[in-house]
């Protein structure tokens, strides 16, 4: 049961256990974390599950595909070098403890 640590816009931290194979977005929405909107449901089509990945975890993720890069151009909060769509981050045992910060807005 790998964990994800969400750093919320009000600086609180919320640690949530997920299952390998689930996306960070799915874990967030199942836990009722409202800062992840995920309108499109995980198809990389809406840019409303934007997160900032803790830089020490960033390099362990696979590089974004073209459709994710296109959507990262569309984020409501500023796009930073560690911006990713949480629907495209699939949890694995190696990612246990991954920390992501949730931006102050998604739309």
């Amino acid at each position, binding site marked *: 049961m790998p964990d994800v640590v969400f750093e919320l816009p009000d600086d609180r931290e919320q640690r949530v256990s997920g299952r390998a194979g689930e996306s960070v977005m799915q874990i967030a929405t199942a836990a009722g974390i409202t800062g992840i909107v995920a309108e*499109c449901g995980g198809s990389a089509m809406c840019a409303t599950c934007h997160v900032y990945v803790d830089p020490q975890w960033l390099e362990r993720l696979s590089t974004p595909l073209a459709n994710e890069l296109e959507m990262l151009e569309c984020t409501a909060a500023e796009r930073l070098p560690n911006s990713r769509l949480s629907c495209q981050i699939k949890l694995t045992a190696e990612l246990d403890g991954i920390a992501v910060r949730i931006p102050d807005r998604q739309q």
Partner: protein
Amino acid sequence: MNETSQIAELDIDPYAADNLADPYPMHQRMREAGPVLRLKPYPSLVACARHEQVHAVLNDHENFISGAGVGLSNFNLEPPWRPKSLILEADPPLHTRTRAVLSRILSPKAVTQIRAVFTAEAEALLERCMAKGEIDGIHDLARRYPLKVFPDAVGVESDERENLLLYGDMVFNAMGPRNEVLARSAERMGPVTPWIMERCQRERLRPGGFGDQIYQAADAGEITHEQAPLLVRSFLSAGVDTTINGIGNALFALAQHPEEYAKLHANPALARPAFEEALRWESTAQTFFRTTGRDTMISGLPVTENTKVLCMLASANRDPRKWPDPDRFDIERRPSGHVALGSGIHGCVGQAVARLEGEVVLTALARRAKRIELVGAPTRRLNNTLRAIETLPLRLVAA
């Protein structure tokens, strides 16, 4: 068929008039019968009615292809009624190229550019509706709005746009069987196909609109100039009848649930989630098909190559395995993961535009009307794929 002996069979015709008129009891029977089903009247297909399997099929484009058509007809066995769509009825690598162009033109960022115009049109239309007081929610609002703003954004001329309704009706009927519903749709359509293709030519499109941007992508070498008109056609097939019924179904849902409408009126910022919930609760596109590209499995049950797979989107969206209290219309639900706009690489490419239209119409309504009341029985327009209303008599009570 020995290898499919574990798959339950039901004697159900999803395209029978009574099931089209009220699909929900059928959905429940299909979900209860198993993760994968056979339907006696259609031996060429298997059906999935639960969320888990529908979502899995839509997200596995390697095993479940679109190039053999996304309706009942199998293009490997019979020719399509029109030249195949280069995005809807295509697989990678062709789909990857065309999809990239359409995704960019319709991206959330591009949609911020049209928000002001779409909002102003919604506000003006709702002013007119409020002045009338009693309206036909379909004719005066749900149909009028997308038919104005979306072809305008594509850059299509403003005359004879009712043809787009006839064409959309036919496109979605043609995804079902050759039944009475389809025959009547084909009769009504007449010579609309050449009309549509003329409107897709570059010289007929407003420079800078979505349609013209397709031709610019062809100029840039991303797609060919031969592909451009067919991609413009995709805007016109998929972008009008869908949002009309999305808005119409949302109005009907809100009219049937005054307590939910009261929440929306009190807080018009709920317009966008309310539209989303309406998509889940009364899904515009009820069904889509895939075709197995090879022998494969769904939930451990074997399905042979070249089998049509019926994905019951609207049923998945009310699956109690996925949604608590699924039949309840709750505008504060966060129905992320519904499949009303599909899922995976073929998920609706225009979904940012669709949501914008729903949001600004419901916002404009919520600000002006404190109540919306049904003042007569609505009538349905039966379509093999779409959940559609023909007339929706409403009274709008000013705030």
